[in-house]
């Protein structure tokens, strides 16, 4: 739709600006709050411009954290989150690309059943199966470990399904050409399928990294030792104070810090991400 009417243009921009403001305002308030002192937000008027305590607040959170809440320094929690998010994203991609490869390219007994079993788990998100999953993880002695944080979240029907769709669009002749060229199944997988699904993997990585980073309920359940607190679950612990006021300026500084890695992943992988979602040429 290419139209050149100033009125429409202005209206379109107005709507866009409104949208940006609605989305960005809470983020702005969080940032502003993180730059003020402890009492500014309790005084009744909410400041809208950054205050003088930016460096002080962030340095405190990164360095020592808020000891009264029992959480480790933010830097450590971010590292935990990073380990968890990366394990989940990479683990999911590795497992689901292999299972999609098996389902699409091999004829084995009960292949249809295997596919449908994977497919059905789409309808069972973590929250639904959280009690039995906890039971299993606890039984395996994986509470308070990186394995316990990430492995239960790795199995993924969505990613398997996505890779299946990608593989189904690969022309049959490509498979046959590879067979004539003497590439066995794993060689075909490594030399041809993997490079051709590169952009899809990148797109999936972005989505899964954010999924893993944002996990809240699961880390809250399986971590009791502060060594394994993740940042998103940690924010909740920071805000929980039994008597006294929550240290909002510090909570907000943590929240802003927690936002940075996902934003960085999106920014740096945006090109591949978009390509992976829209590309059809094989």
């Amino acid at each position: 739709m290419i139209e050149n009417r100033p009125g429409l243009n202005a209206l379109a921009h107005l709507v866009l600006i409104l949208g940006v403001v609605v989305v960005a305002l809470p983020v702005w308030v969080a940032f502003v709050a993180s730059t003020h002192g402890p009492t500014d937000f309790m005084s009744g008027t909410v400041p809208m411009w950054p205050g003088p305590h930016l460096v002080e607040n962030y340095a405190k959170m990164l360095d020592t954290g808020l000891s009264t809440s029992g959480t480790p320094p933010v830097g450590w929690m971010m590292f935990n989150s990073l380990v968890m998010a990366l394990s989940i994203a990479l683990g999911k991609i590795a497992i689901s690309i292999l299972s999609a490869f098996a389902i699409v390219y091999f004829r084995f007994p009960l292949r249809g059943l295997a596919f449908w079993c994977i497919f059905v788990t789409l309808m069972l998100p973590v929250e639904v199966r959280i009690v039995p999953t906890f039971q299993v993880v606890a039984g395996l002695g994986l509470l308070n470990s990186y394995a316990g944080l990430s492995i239960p979240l790795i199995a993924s029907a969505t990613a398997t399904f996505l890779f299946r769709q990608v593989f189904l669009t690969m022309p049959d002749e490509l498979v046959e050409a590879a067979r004539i060229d003497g590439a066995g199944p794993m060689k075909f997988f490594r030399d041809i399928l993997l490079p051709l699904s590169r952009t899809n993997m990148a797109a999936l990585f972005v989505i899964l990294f954010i999924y893993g980073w944002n996990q809240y309920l699961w880390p809250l359940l399986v971590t009791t030792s502060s060594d394994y607190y993740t940042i998103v679950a940690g924010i909740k612990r920071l805000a929980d104070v039994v008597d006294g006021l929550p240290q909002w300026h510090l909570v907000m500084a943590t929240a802003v810090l927690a936002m940075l890695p996902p934003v960085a992943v999106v920014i740096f992988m945006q090109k591949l991400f978009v390509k992976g979602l829209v590309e059809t040429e094989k």
Partner: protein
Amino acid sequence: MASITLDNLGKVYPGGTRAVGDVNMQIADGEFIVLVGPSGCGKSTLLRMVAGLESITEGEVRIGDRVVNTVEPADRDIAMVFQNYALYPHMSVRQNLAYGLKNRGTSKAEITRRVDEAAEILQIGQFLDRKPRALSGGQRQRVAMGRAIVREPAAFLFDEPLSNLDAKLRVAMRLEIKELQRRLRTTSLYVTHDQLEAMTLADRLVVLNGGQVEQIGTPLEVYRNPASTFVAGFIGSPAMNLIPSRAVPHLPGSAHAGIIGIRPEDLAVDPDGPIEMQVRAVEELGAQRLVHGHTNGADLTITLGSHADLHDTLRLSAQPEALHRFDEKTGKRLA
């Protein structure tokens, strides 16, 4: 290089559909064989059985002296050129050419030598570092052929390699394939539905219909002595006239045959001719004209020089040796 033998070769799909049945033929070393037929006649299935991409349910395929029924495609010493080229999109042309050799453990120096040689033959030297998507259809086709050449196989298998190209390029590439095959003297099996392509390329033609071989012979043999009405109608353009003999009672031999076949170019205008044709339409082709009409209810097409006079009714005659007689029921040629 090797001969290829097909011995009672057949393919029945699970479910009972018969795609190919009872194919027997001996392909000599260095021969160019074209499998031709309408779509669904089983020609691609036959080729894919030779390639090893389709399992063989009946009979045997031998390449050289070796029965290859259960041998993996890569170990059959063949190379295949696909209709949609099937180049690896993420590899450069050079990597595409080298991939098969690398998998077989060919030495680096040898790979370089063969790739450069193939690039030289096909004149794709300047594209070696490009990706396939940066090439035109014709160039991709060359790369696909290059991938076959570098393997120095016992046989080339072509699966309608020219059908994705435009008409002009197709003619040019057809000639190139022919020259290439002459030069390399590699046994070749070529599948096409285009009878012109088949005629021009083949040392011998195999005309297939409904999974059965209708006729095997040199292009001229097939053209001059079609074994059945199917072959007669399929090979040659414009197609041979197939007329029920009652429509042309005055032609020699028509009393003993059910169907008389006459090529359009074998019919000549002759005031005393035994056939009277009512002209319905004329197609101007420049060098000649196609005149469509009918005689006693049977359709008839003739080719005339562009200077010939046209009337509503033409009297035609044909030389007795230009007449083909076929059985009405079986469609088979009568002696």
